[in-house]
C-alpha cells in the first residue's frame, strides 16, 4: 500500500517549513504583546528553539548534514540568553 519514496518528500519539507514559519510568527505575536518581561523571554526562547527545528528540517531538505551543527549552537545560545535574562530580572526585582 505504501509506495517507495526516496528520502523525505519535497512537499513535506515545504509544508513543514511553512508550518514552522507560522509557529515563529505566533511566538513573535506573544513577544510583541507581552504583557510581562518573562512572557517575552519565554517567547524568545521558544523562537530560538523553533529556529533550531527549522534548521533541522532544512538540513533534511538540502541533504546537508553540516547544518546540524547550527542547531547545536542555537540550542546552547538560547539557553544562555534565557538564564541571563531571568537572573537579571530577578536581581532587579530584589534590589
Amino acid at each position, binding site marked *: 500500500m505504501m509506495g517507495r519514496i*526516496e528520502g523525505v518528500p519535497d512537499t513535506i519539507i515545504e509544508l513543514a517549513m511553512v508550518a514552522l514559519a507560522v509557529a515563529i510568527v505566533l511566538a513573535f505575536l*506573544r513577544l510583541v504583546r507581552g504583557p510581562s518581561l518573562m512572557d517575552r523571554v519565554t517567547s524568545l526562547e521558544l523562537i530560538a528553539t523553533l529556529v533550531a527545528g527549522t534548521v533541522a528540517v532544512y538540513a533534511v531538505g538540502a541533504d546537508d548534514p553540516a547544518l*546540524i551543527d547550527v542547531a*547545536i549552537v542555537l540550542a546552547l545560545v538560547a*539557553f544562555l540568553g534565557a538564564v541571563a535574562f*531571568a537572573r537579571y530580572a530577578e536581581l532587579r526585582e530584589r534590589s
Partner: protein
Amino acid sequence: MTDWLATIAVILGVVLCLLSAVGVVRMPDVYMRLQVASKASSLGIALLMLGVALHFGELSVTIRALLVLIFLFLTAPVSAHVIGRAAYIARTPLAVGTTPDDLDGAYDAETGRLSGIDDRPAQAAEPPARADDSGIIGS
C-alpha cells in the same frame, strides 16, 4: 521503510512545534505559557532530530542529533524553572482561578531563597516542625 519513518517523525515534530507556538499565544498566564513552550517544543525538536537521524542514517549525524537532544533536554527544564522563578519573584499575576498557590509567602523577599513551607508568616505562631534539619528551612 526508513524514509517513511523519517517523514512521519518530521511531520509529528513540526505539528508539536506548531502546537507549542499556538499554546504560547492562547494560554492565560506566564506559568502555563512556560509549560507549553518548554515541554511541547522539546518533544517536537526530539522528533525532528529523530527524523534527521533516520534520514541521513550515518553514525556521525546521529551522534550530532543526539547531542542537540541532550543539550535541549538538559537546558529546557532549567531555563523554564529559572524563568518561572523570576516571574514569581517579580509577582507576575497568576491566571484567574488558579488555586491554591502553595508558594504564597514562601520566598524571602530580600534574599530570594525559598524557605520551608512550615514557617511562612501565616503559621509563625506554631514552632516549625523541622527547623534544625537543614540550612534551607528558616534561612
